């Protein structure tokens, strides 16, 4: 029985990984063939690094992801504090609207924002591009921050903020010294989640970017629409390597902190 389980797991892993490995192997292929490996070359990587469109859209993606996730983390953390202290009915309304971008299909969120931006661009001086892209990213990022931070408030003692003020802290200091450390794990995971969603997003960016400001996923999409080029394979390989490194580092950091907490007696 156990053996059968192992074989099954291996089969599923093959299904998940074989396509990616084929992609990686053919990034070193001399010709453009997708089925015959004719010889080893690094040409596609060289071409990739000289491809201005790819480099500039990569830079653009990173700028937008950093800005969007930082702004959403601030906005979302403040929002969570406020929402937690709201009365029941307004709280329920706000949470339901906040969940909309998470529940709705991405295409609906993208299209709805596009309608809004079209409306604004006709009446004000708003053009599709960096600004609309950034607004769209913040909009779908903030709900994830709130989703991560809110549960931390539920775990927190509601009176410690008042207690800190009774003991002479200013509200700002009380926030910094008492609330922030309690909710910090949620804030960090919310930030990381919104950063990765921003890096990876295609659908919403596709509807809100216009033609001037492109992100890497949009560039990849237009590359797959045109002629087949092993440059995409090379790009996939680099992204795959980056992902593996990041996940290994993340795993190492997590096990290290877990060990530290165990041996150091925790809090």
């Amino acid at each position, binding site marked *: 029985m156990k053996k059968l389980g192992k074989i*099954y797991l291996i089969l599923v892993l093959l299904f998940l990984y074989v396509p990616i490995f084929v992609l990686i192997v053919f990034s070193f292929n001399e010709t453009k*063939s997708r089925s015959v490996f004719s010889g080893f070359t690094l040409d596609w990587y060289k071409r990739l690094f000289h491809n201005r469109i790819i480099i500039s859209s990569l830079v653009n993606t990173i700028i937008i992801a950093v800005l969007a996730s930082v702004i959403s983390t601030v906005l979302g953390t*403040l929002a969570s504090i406020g*929402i937690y202290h709201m009365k029941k009915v307004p709280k329920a309304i706000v949470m339901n609207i906040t969940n909309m971008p998470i529940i709705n299909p991405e*295409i609906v969120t993208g*299209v*709805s924002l596009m309608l809004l931006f079209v409306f604004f661009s006709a009446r004000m001086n708003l053009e599709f591009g960096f600004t609309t892209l950034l607004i769209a990213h913040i909009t779908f990022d903030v709900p994830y921050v709130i989703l991560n931070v809110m549960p931390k408030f539920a775990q927190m003692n509601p009176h410690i903020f008042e207690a800190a003020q009774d003991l002479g802290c200013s509200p700002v200091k009380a926030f910094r010294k008492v609330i922030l450390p309690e909710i910090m794990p949620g804030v960090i995971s919310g930030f990381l989640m919104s950063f990765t969603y921003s890096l*990876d997003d295609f659908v919403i960016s596709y509807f809100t970017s216009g033609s001037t400001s492109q992100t890497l996923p949009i560039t*990849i999409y237009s590359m797959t629409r045109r002629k087949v080029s092993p440059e995409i394979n090379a790009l996939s390989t680099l992204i795959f390597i980056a*992902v593996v490194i990041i996940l290994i580092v993340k795993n190492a950091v997590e096990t290290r902190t877990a060990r530290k907490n165990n041996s150091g007696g925790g809090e």
Partner: protein
Amino acid sequence: MKLKYFSAPYLVWMAVFIAVPLLMIVYFAFTTDDGKLTMKYISDVGQYANIFVRSIWLSLIATAVCLVIAYPVAFILSRMDKHKQGTMLMIVMLPMWMNFLLRTYAWMTLLGNNGIINHIFNMLGFESVKLINTSGAVVLGMVYNYLPFMILPLYSVMEKIDKSLLEASADLGCSSFSSLVRVIIPLSMPGITSGITMVFVPAISTFIISRMLGGGSNLLIGDLIEMQFLGNAYNPHLGASISLVLMVIILVIMTVMNQFDPEEQVLM
């Protein structure tokens, strides 16, 4: 200072960029260009009934396949040694971190007429088979892209199922099959329902997978919406109507799923 005012900036943001855009979809769906009320566009959606049926059908198949593949994976993972579980879960989830365009592109090259699968067929002496631009390819793309969305919620419920419950049911005379039906499946119900929603919603609304793997002949709801907003058929009123119908379909499905879920928590 009252703490609830901290949320003021976000409330403005939420109103302008979440609530208003959704209301605009409703507004566009029921009005003409001059702002007159009309039911024309909503009733026009009926012309695309075949596309709706195809989308629902293909994404239901993909969701079912995902459930069948993912259920044993999640179970096996949840019964592994604790320290192995984390690593295995990471290995299973790792492909998810690649952009889904690249993952779909990978299948495009595998299934293509000159792709590696047909090449292997030819080497074995078989004729080439048309693999890409079929509805099967679209379902395959959906399963490949969304399988981890099914594994993750299933695993997180199964991991909490106490090992002693399974031992108890075995002691009380259950075969492993009836243990599965009477203990594991009922206890993993919340994972099943959230897995189904997490696969079905992106699958029914995709336009990339159908475009890259389905050719022009397998249009889905997502393609239809995209064409009304960015394609040659530019018609935001019709596009908004289709989006509205899509939202209603998803709402119905989620309400149905909630009926099966004792805790009524479909999301994550």
